[in-house]
């Protein structure tokens, strides 16, 4: 249970730091809305093609906002050599990974809570009652993104051109999550419930579980000097 | 655009790429081994001198 208490401790520290500096959340939020406007101008969403366009646009917005969040993820540790302070301590590296993943997840979920309804308003889409289901699927996709994103944000911590390298490594690995999330959202939009997109949902859940466990196990070598 | 054109195109590209890679690999290996030989040669006398 020590693992959990350390994870909670680190998570609270990150939240406190974020409340004090308030830079990641606001920048991610404004970046997300900015992307929505950009999409609105560049695509004329004919009502009938809404079903397959909306999920792709939403998910693209979240992907790029998440990447922005990942770049900021270890900033708190970078200042004043705090990462060294954590590595010095008897902290379980897996707990550190879980804390960082949950922190980034919370940031992205907060952004998504605002962006999805805003998306509905901007693109004046009809079926409002589907938003909760959509949000659930997006949540699963975001978990997958945060797990691998945090892992590779830590891996590229010491690399040159960090901000460029991270998306380059991350996006090919995210292909299953991108495809699965968009297919599930499309199914929900088109016929109200998952139906034939269930295997996609299983793939998504499998992805999250596999890489969360692998991440916790492997994080020892990722963060070590 | 006979079918043979595409076959030769594909085979040509693949085998020339592999050939080029093989040659560069050979050259890099040769250069590395000569450097190794020089290092061994130059560090031998020094090692003896030191003992």
């Amino acid at each position, binding site marked *: 249970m020590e693992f959990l208490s350390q994870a909670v401790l680190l998570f609270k520290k990150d939240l406190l730091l974020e409340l004090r500096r308030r830079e990641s959340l606001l920048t991610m939020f404004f970046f997300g809305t900015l992307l929505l406007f950009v999409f609105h101008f560049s695509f004329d969403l004919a009502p009938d093609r809404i079903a397959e366009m909306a999920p792709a646009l939403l998910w693209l917005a979240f992907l790029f906002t998440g990447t922005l969040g990942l770049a900021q993820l270890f900033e708190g540790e970078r200042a004043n050599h705090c990462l060294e302070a954590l590595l010095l301590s008897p902290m379980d590296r897996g707990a550190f990974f879980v804390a960082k993943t949950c922190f980034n997840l919370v940031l992205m979920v907060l952004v998504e809570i605002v962006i999805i309804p805003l998306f509905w308003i901007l693109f004046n889409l009809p079926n409002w009652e589907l938003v909760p289901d959509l949000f659930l699927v997006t949540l699963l996709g975001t978990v997958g993104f945060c797990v691998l994103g945090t892992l590779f944000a830590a891996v590229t911590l010491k690399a040159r051109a960090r901000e460029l390298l991270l998306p380059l490594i991350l996006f090919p690995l995210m*292909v299953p999550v991108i495809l699965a999330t968009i297919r599930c959202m499309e199914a929900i939009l088109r016929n109200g419930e998952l139906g034939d997109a269930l295997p996609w949902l299983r793939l998504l859940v499998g992805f999250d579980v596999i890489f969360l466990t692998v991440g916790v196990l492997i994080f020892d070598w*990722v963060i070590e000097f | 655009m006979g079918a043979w054109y595409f076959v030769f195109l594909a085979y040509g590209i693949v085998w020339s790429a*592999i050939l080029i890679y093989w040659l560069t690999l050979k050259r890099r290996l040769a250069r590395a081994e000569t450097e190794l030989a020089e290092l061994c040669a130059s560090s031998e006398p020094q090692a003896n001198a030191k003992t």
Partner: protein
Amino acid sequence: MAKISQISGKRNGYFGALALVSILLGLYWGLVQAPPDAYQGEVQRIMYLHIPSILTAYLSFFLVFVGSCLYLWKREKRDDILAYSAAEIGVLFTALTIIEGSIWGKPTWGVWWTWDARLTLTAILLLIFAGYLMLRSLTEEENRGASSAAVLGIIGFLDIPLIHMSVYWWRTLHQPPSILRPDKAPWENIAWPLLTPLLLNLAAFLLLYFYLLSLRFRLGEVNEEIKALKLSRDF
């Protein structure tokens, strides 16, 4: 892995000669001896190149995975050299696979690039490989780069089945899957007379692959020895 590194220069030569002979044999059999395919005609001969190079690409990704796991576990330089040698050759073969795939696609589908499941999968594989090599070269500190690349090697390999599934499901939504169907092994749905050249070429490719790998491995080891010698000289 110790076996490969013991192959001295001379024995490497025999290995190379053997690979060369089998390549020429495969070429002759595939291009001249084998009858053209029933409905695809001559273009089918690219298949003798395409399937072996895909399998070698998959093999090299597996070797990267094995090398990365061993390196993280035992921290021996040798496993790391194996991993990035396999990665380097893997990138070459994956790129060639994509080129062959598009050349083969032109006469059969009339377009240079089709979002066929196999080609998309190979393209993603190439991106992951490229990410692996980029990560290794952009990380300054030596063994930090090695362990970061090892992590990507492992995660990348574990991700392949998921990518494979998602790309094929995505593909079957739009058009029926092509020859390399996931449910049946490639050689089941090919007529017998075409099979022997395919297997011959496959053997040739594997021999070539291991020959190149042993050369690249040797290069990695020599570089390592040079660094060790320089270090020990001013110890």
